[in-house]
């Protein structure tokens, strides 16, 4: 679970000492029960690990991670004999975010190391250094790690170049891949029909809004909008009105108008997906046969035009041109400026726990907005049907085994066993319930009674996780292409958008054309034929 979400739920359900003691007493009773007393040992483990250290009992520490790792070793023991990997050394590259990512992996894998006899060396990277380190390793042929924690958008760079090892069947069985939410199933994690990824996370954008702006007698006098058309109208109508909470000028939807190292493009995607992601095709950024950018088709131009309309109407807060997504979420929305936003899960969770947040009691969530009409790129015409396409921005982290282990069966099995341990069904439940940096990503993570039993307030868990679950399993989810250099495309698009918003281009169409031209250049630079091949593979079209 993302740290802020964890803190938020704790703050929201206001767990007191008495409740916490009750929970812990229950946990103690469970652990004291003789094994025979439980009907199902497997579900017992799930209940048991969810009590470590106990919701509200402070942040988990290394001893907790090791205990969870120890309790979840059964799956490994079914496939690996004790001491089987004696003498094997593996190198694991991942993030060094404080008490998240590699910190947890170390604890989880310690009992695994003790049982199997393998030794793991660690490459810890700051998040900001991650992309550059990975790209340089690939470009200079110096892949010096056997296992990597990696986001799905980089699959094109790694899987597309044959740098990863294919997942053996026993691993698929051990981690129960059928349990993944729909969008994390094929083609995500696969390349040319082969599976490579052990998912440990899920990501998507959801819609956050201020409840006090909507409903009868509110400043808008309208219900919560569900389409971008309604959002734009409300945003324009709010010009000149007063925020009910702060008394400062009221504002509607908050678009980030400044880039954010490529990540800012996800926010235009939120708007564009509803217009451009037609249910008849998984492609919505490039045409699969030619890699011709779709970013300057009427759907995308409409999305850009929507933003430009709001700039024209003076509907944004002052200096919005210098606001990146971090600003819109944490300095504006949470601080009481603006009433609508799309973001990852943690904006809602920060609503009550952040010192600068004033909107904790009035924030609501939903799936990303829809559109009244959708552009059919195949027929080249708009269709007047409602279209919803939640944006699975970044797709989430996974664990991948590199091709460096090929040729050494013992090492290969060890690497895959370690990856499978980290992506195990039970262990992942713990990671989704406690601060880990990861969100729930399996259908079994949404069994709310398990959370309730562990001490969570059911209403809050359902509210937050429900909007994620609805987005994950949406039949028309917009999933980004996992092609080499995807963040280069995003980054240059951000730059061109920033110029367009600043009035450097004459129109939305001209701005979109500039992005398309820049994308064509990147495609040619990386190699068009290669890009077409990997794009099709990433969409599952080849």
């Amino acid at each position: 679970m993302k740290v802020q979400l964890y803190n938020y739920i704790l703050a929201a359900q206001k767990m007191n000492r008495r409740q916490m003691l009750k929970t812990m007493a229950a946990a103690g009773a469970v652990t004291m029960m003789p094994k025979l007393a439980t009907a199902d040992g497997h579900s017992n483990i799930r209940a048991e690990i969810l009590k470590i250290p106990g919701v509200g009992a402070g942040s988990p520490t290394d001893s907790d991670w090791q205990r969870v790792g120890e309790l979840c070793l059964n799956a490994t023991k079914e496939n690996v004999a004790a001491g089987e990997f004696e003498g094997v050394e593996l190198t694991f590259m991942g993030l060094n975010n404080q008490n998240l990512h590699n910190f947890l992996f170390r604890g989880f894998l310690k009992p695994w190391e003790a049982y199997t006899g393998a030794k793991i060396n660690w490459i810890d990277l700051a998040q900001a250094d991650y992309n550059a380190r990975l790209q340089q390793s690939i470009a200079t042929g110096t892949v010096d790690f056997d296992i990597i924690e990696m986001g799905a958008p980089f699959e094109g760079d790694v899987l597309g170049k044959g740098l990863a090892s294919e997942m053996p069947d026993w691993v698929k069985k051990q981690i129960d891949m059928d349990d993944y939410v729909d969008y994390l199933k094929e083609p995500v994690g696969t390349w040319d029909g082969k599976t490579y990824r052990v998912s440990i996370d899920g990501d998507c954008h959801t819609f956050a809004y201020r409840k006090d702006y909507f409903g009868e007698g509110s400043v808008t006098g309208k219900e919560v909008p569900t389409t971008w058309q309604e959002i734009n109208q409300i945003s324009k109508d709010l010009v000149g009105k007063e925020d009910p909470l702060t008394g400062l000028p009221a504002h509607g939807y908050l678009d980030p108008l400044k880039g954010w190292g490529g990540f800012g493009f996800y926010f235009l995607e939120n708007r564009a997906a509803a217009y451009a992601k037609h249910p008849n095709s998984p492609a919505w950024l490039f045409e699969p046969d030619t890699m011709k950018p779709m970013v300057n088709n009427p759907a995308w131009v409409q999305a850009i035009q929507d933003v430009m309309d709001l700039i024209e109407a003076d509907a944004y807060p002052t200096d919005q041109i210098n606001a990146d997504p971090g600003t819109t979420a944490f300095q504006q929305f949470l601080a009481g400026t603006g009433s609508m936003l799309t973001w990852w899960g943690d904006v809602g969770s920060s609503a009550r726990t952040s010192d600068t947040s004033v909107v904790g009691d009035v924030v609501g969530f939903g799936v990303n907005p829809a559109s009244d009409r959708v552009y059919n790129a195949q027929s080249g015409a708009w269709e007047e049907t409602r279209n919803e396409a939640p944006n699975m921005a970044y797709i989430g982290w996974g664990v991948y085994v590199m091709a460096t282990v090929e040729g050494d069966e013992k090492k290969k099995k060890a690497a895959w066993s370690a990856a499978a341990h980290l992506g195990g069904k039970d262990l992942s439940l713990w990671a989704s319930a406690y601060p880990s940096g990861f969100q729930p990503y399996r259908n079994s993570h949404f069994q709310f009674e398990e959370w309730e039993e562990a001490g969570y307030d059911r209403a809050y868990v359902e509210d937050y996780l429900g909007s994620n679950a609805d987005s994950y399993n949406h039949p028309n989810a917009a999933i980004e292409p996992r092609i080499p250099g995807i963040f280069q495309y995003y980054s240059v698009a951000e730059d061109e958008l920033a110029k367009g918003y600043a009035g450097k281009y004459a129109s939305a169409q001209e701005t979109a054309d500039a992005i398309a031209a820049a994308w064509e250049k990147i495609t040619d630079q990386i190699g068009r034929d290669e890009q077409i091949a990997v794009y099709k593979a990433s969409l599952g079209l080849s």
Partner: protein
Amino acid sequence: MMTDGDLLHTVTADNISNNRKRLGKLLVWSTALFGLALAAWQMAFETGRVSTGFDTWRPVLYAYMLWATALCAAQVIVNGEKGKRTLFVLPAALFVVSLVVFPLLFALYISFTDWNLASPNGPQPNGWSNVKEMWNDEFYWNALKNMVYYVLAVSVEYVIAFGLALLLNSQIRARKFFRVVFLLPLMLSPVAVSWMIGKSMLEVRFGPVSRLLRDIGVEPSFFGSPEIARFMIMAMDAWTFIPFMMIMLLAGLQALPSEVIEASKVDGATGWQSFKEVIFPLMLPVSVTAIVIRIIFKLKLADIIINVTSGGPGGATDSVTSFIFREYRDRSNVGYGTLLAMVYLILIIIFVTALLKLVSRWMERPA
């Protein structure tokens, strides 16, 4: 025994035979030819002209090191004792030259390729494409134009710095305290300045400066319009580095001969006359040095821009370095980014050389 030449440093007699000299030269030339041949072979392999070669260029590096070793050895073989003296410097010189020349040559090569780190084919030469792209890249020229504005701002910084230096040089109360206080901004990292001031104090909604402006009836906007955004960047950069110029000028002021200034006062010069006719001309060499160093600092301006505006709005605050940073870091566009950097390097060399030539007449303190 030598009877002429450099007798002072000669401690032993050198009687070097022609054969020995030939051996030394042969050693240098044979290793050089070997290295060149190996490099040519590897180049042919890389370009697909021959089918066999090495996986990496490392063997060529070893050949270069062999040549460098042979060159050092040959100094002694050919020149004897004199060669030994050369050996005190030559290895270090070779090392430095290698670290400068090889990367520069590599960068030059890279700047004429289409190397994108995500490309599976690695760097591929693309002729003059990058140059043409640069020529048509109005946002690079825009960044260069911004650099002109940023460099011109140094003149204003100089005036302020001179004023502060004069103030701190005069007999004021708590002079030492103020000297330290005025130096404090220089001790801050520009990254910290950009966060503390650009992203916190000037934050439009809850930044204290914004609140103050709102209280007096002005709607704050610091990075909304191109001109104001550029000015704010200049101001933050100036705030950090004016103390640097100030401390240089203050040192200059303190080193001025007091007799000359006193003499001007005896002659009846007013404060302004004394400054204009005596202090300012005497301070010219220090002033020019401070300005030139500050301009060199300014040409590297990037951190504040990257943190606060990312070059926006619409490229209005972009410096060349921040522009290249985005090209490199966000887009892994190594080929084009390197070309832009090389062009900028050439422009800087020309500009600074011309500047130094221009100001050289003021660099000498008048007699």
